[in-house]
């Protein structure tokens, strides 16, 4: 029989199914040493063990039965499940702005296949309208699925196509672009798109969700509504990230693509602007601009796409006692760029110096950022900093390590000339380096301090 019949089952579990002539979607009565069970055989997760059979009971619950305890299985019928997301035609209104949504694989709207546990993404305009009908109040929506990858699998090829497709869509006249993206590397993509898509006349808004949209309390719908609104009506013609502001369902924040970072593995309010203030607060009723300096929306279509990317670049996260052979290995493997996340103001230990010299000699471009995330590299304060600079390490001011990485990849895709690369790296495209850090750009409050507790009690965050 085909693998479909035994989907996910192998080893002992599969043998038992074969022996009793039943398979996935069989409605069965099972006799076992633990008693009798009645239900529908479900596919087994590939990562689960091979010695249990999964049944869906009438109550909707799933259970597993150990294959070795089963003495008989009788099929009483078959109920195969077919799933689809309901489609409703997305209403078109010529008075509303046109927005295109590119999908890269993160599920913004989806439904869980309740029998198998697989997530079926909703993506076509009709499907999205079926699950988030509020979108139709904001814009006319087109969608295009570019990839179906988890965000950690986004890389050079995806960045380039994405940038090109954004350029084409803007040339075709859309009023805003939304990109659905997994959250893990959303800030990497936001950074690289900032460099590749230069001078956009309309908002380019990245969005995702921290709780999948098959959960009733998901942040997905609100994020999507906010992102589409920012793309359709917002004034900020830059690459930006639109995600929850507080963990409460209060408002979203628009973050500049080069200053944003995912700061918590699971919180809804995980995305924070680092070393600056966010661009804007956004909810269903309004966009409140917080940052006076941003590129305004324009009517022209003059946009430059620079889709270059050299991925022989790495981030070296410095730790005390680091051995120089790590650097040597990087050089030996042909890497052309290193972004160091150094300690404090931008330091590494002395034993690394000869290796950094070898890197310079081999033509490797080395940039210094800080693992403190907040603050500037300042390599003049201590002698060690000055020594490191003499080894050809270029301080990258207050560029975030991941942003510096993306920018170096992008720059090395254009030139290997030391000065040209440096010129590209240190000339900000969109505030990846800022002249000044505002006093309220670094806010990491600590719990139990009386005034903080008072704030937490008064303000839903």
């Amino acid at each position, binding site marked *: 029989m085909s693998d479909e019949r035994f989907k996910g089952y192998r080893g002992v579990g599969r043998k038992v199914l074969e022996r009793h002539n039943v398979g996935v979607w069989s409605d069965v009565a099972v006799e076992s040493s633990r008693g009798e069970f009645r239900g529908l055989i479900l596919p087994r997760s590939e990562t689960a063990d091979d010695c249990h059979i999964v049944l869906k009971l009438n109550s909707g619950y799933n259970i*597993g039965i*150990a294959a070795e305890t089963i003495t008989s299985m009788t099929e009483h019928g078959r109920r195969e499940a077919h799933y689809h997301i309901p489609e409703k035609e997305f209403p078109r209104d010529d008075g509303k702005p046109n927005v295109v949504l590119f999908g890269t694989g993160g599920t913004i709207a989806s439904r869980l296949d309740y029998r198998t546990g697989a997530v079926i993404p909703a993506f076509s305009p009709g499907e999205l309208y079926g699950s988030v009908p509020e979108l139709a109040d904001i814009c006319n929506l087109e969608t295009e699925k570019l990839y179906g990858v988890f965000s950690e699998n986004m890389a050079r090829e995806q960045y380039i196509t994405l940038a090109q497709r954004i350029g084409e869509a803007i040339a075709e006249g859309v009023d805003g672009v939304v990109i659905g993206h997994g959250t893990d590397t959303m800030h990497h993509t936001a950074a690289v798109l900032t460099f590749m898509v230069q001078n956009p006349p309309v908002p380019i808004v990245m969005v995702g969700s921290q709780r999948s949209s*098959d*959960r*009733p309390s998901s942040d997905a719908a609100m994020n999507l509504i906010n992102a589409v609104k920012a793309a359709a009506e917002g004034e900020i013609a830059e690459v930006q990230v639109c995600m929850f502001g507080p963990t409460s369902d209060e408002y979203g924040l628009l973050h500049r693509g080069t200053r944003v970072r995912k700061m918590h593995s699971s919180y809804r309010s995980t995305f924070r602007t680092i070393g600056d203030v966010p661009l804007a607060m956004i909810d269903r009723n309004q966009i409140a601009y917080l940052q006076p300096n941003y590129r305004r929306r324009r009517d022209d279509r003059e946009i430059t796409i620079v889709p270059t990317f050299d991925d022989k670049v790495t981030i070296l996260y410095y730790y005390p006692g680091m051995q120089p052979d790590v650097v040597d290995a990087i050089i030996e493997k042909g890497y052309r760029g290193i972004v160091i996340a150094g300690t404090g103001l931008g330091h590494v230990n002395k034993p690394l110096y000869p290796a950094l010299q070898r890197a310079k000699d081999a033509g490797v471009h080395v940039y210094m950022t800080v693992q403190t995330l907040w603050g500037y590299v300042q390599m003049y304060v201590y002698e060690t900093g000055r020594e490191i600079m003499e080894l050809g390490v270029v301080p990258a001011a207050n560029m975030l390590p991941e942003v510096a990485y993306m920018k170096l990849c992008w720059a090395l895709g254009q030139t290997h000339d030391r000065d040209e690369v440096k010129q590209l790296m240190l000339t900000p495209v969109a505030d990846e380096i800022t002249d000044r850090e505002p006093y309220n750009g670094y806010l990491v409050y600590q719990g139990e301090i009386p005034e903080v507790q008072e704030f937490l*009690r008064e303000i839903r965050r």
Partner: protein
Amino acid sequence: MPLSFKPFEQMTPGDYENVGLKVGLEVHQQLLTSRKLFCRCPAGRYGPEYDAEILRHMRPTLSELGEYDGTALMEKKTRKNIYYRIHRDSVCTYEFDDTPPFFIDDEALDIALQICQLLRLNIVGELHIARKQYLDGSIPTGFQRTGILGVDGVIPFGEREIRIRQLSIEEDACREVSDIGHERIYLTDRLGMPLIETVTEPDMHTPQEAAAVGQILRRLVRSTGKVRTGYGAGRQDVNVSVRGGTRVEIKGTPQIWRNPHLIYNEARRQCSLLHIRNELKSRGVTPDTFEHAIEDVTRIVAQSSFEPIRSALTAGERVSCVLLRGFGALLREPTQEHTTFAKEFSDRARVIACLSKQPNLIHSDAPSESLSGREWKDLRRKMRAHHGDTLVLVWGSADDVNTASKEIVIRAREAAEGIPSDTRQALKDGTNGFERVLPGADRMYPDTDLPPLAITQDRLERLAADLPEFIWEREARYRSLDVPEHTFSDLCAPRRTKLFDRITGELKVDGKFAAIVLVERLKGMRRAGLKVDLLSDEEIYAVFKAYTEKRLSRQGVLELLGYLASQPRDQAGEDRVARVFATSDFTQLTDAELDAAIAKWDAQLDDDEFAAPQKKCRFLAGRIMREFVGRVDGARAIHRIHEKLGVPVTVSAHGEVQS
């Protein structure tokens, strides 16, 4: 023709049989663990204090066929802002859904599995955690993590058996603080507490049977000694249907004794709703032919003197009128005690349209004390109402009134179909009110955050070795020992079982006496402020031993226990009972001492005062019992006095003498 239904007190099993009553139970019981079920927060820390609040909204997710679940749709219409109050001691980021679950608490799983064994359920080979959607916000995720541990069990019930459908382990929900208008507030302290839900088949046929089975299940879980007790730690929902009716779930109270009255009212409500359905049918109103109209009538009632409408109009709100064609007089039809059919509509407006201020509607079937005759007349004209139609008026903000009007129409159409599948809330007066639409199996989703967990044979064998005796076996033994039924509950708790068995077994103390002392008397002492918990099992045993050795009277047992419970414990392991006997006089009066005492008191009495010898005996007994507290058994003293004075004696069946 209104339906007649006997009062609760007069209903017989035959009456319930006539309406085809079926009742099933869903028993929720918190487990006694040190941690919560899916995170490492300490269990059982309760309090209204909070450090912060979080706001969430619930959004329905798509169901199997791409339709929204009925409950989901209902909750979406209500558009509630849900506030969670969180306290750092009881809640971490898991409970408010900002951290994925940790592995299930092993202690909780062990307890739940033991209860499966006691219920003789077929235990699963692998636990799969599911997400059961709750869009009312009672859980910040919008779903409860829950998993089936066993199915198809059975417990004895008199001559019958009650089938147990399933047992699941799950996390408890929030406690509601308030629900007013569009704002609902929850406390999160109880959220995530380990809980089991035991579901019976609908095998009970009277409200009283349901309560009795509820008691058995309660005692059964308590017999493990590993479940939480106290208010709210155990809660029973009842599923009720009558012949031709629909399964309706009533969210129970923590007090089982309230359930029969609730069940009675629900049976009555269902019969009444079926009666209304039939009446509508006879008037030609079916779900297909049902006609209605909705109109804004703010202008018509603008001058109304009816206070609720006046204040709504002052606040700039709207008034809407709903015409229900052919519903004339039905809204005043009684459904439950002190409740009419109109409440079904009012409840929906309250829950779904958030019109929580009462009254939230009026209707033309009971027009007095609201609008004037003139106003009703204008409304009837505006709505083109015929004789035999009903008008319902609601007021509130434009959005809410719109929702409420549509909901009234929905409820009316359901009336033509029969009984809607509801989850209903128990009210204090024994009636119930609408809470939400009963959700279906479509709201179950696999929890992709947690892998399946094998329930191994080794684990089950280890747990089986530590299983308490089946309570029905224990209770049968208690009955044979003439132990009063009302003490069973306490005597099945493991804190007392071993001691009781030793006292009645090794010491051969009469079961009734032992039960009364261990349950009632100790409770009385605790209420009186004595530190009963200071008494060790060994001490209680030693006191009973002294009784069997005739060193203490029955009264002496109580005296000594009371004395011990009032004394601080100086050092661990000291034999306080021996010390009391060494230093105080609890020794029984010898016959000679008793006779001397009788003679002494008799000599002091003036015989003229006691013409009746019985009266004199009682008086003497009182004096002697007071003088020799704990040293002479009452029955023995009375017998001796009567004997000495030559008066015949009558003794109660249990050998007790009241003096």
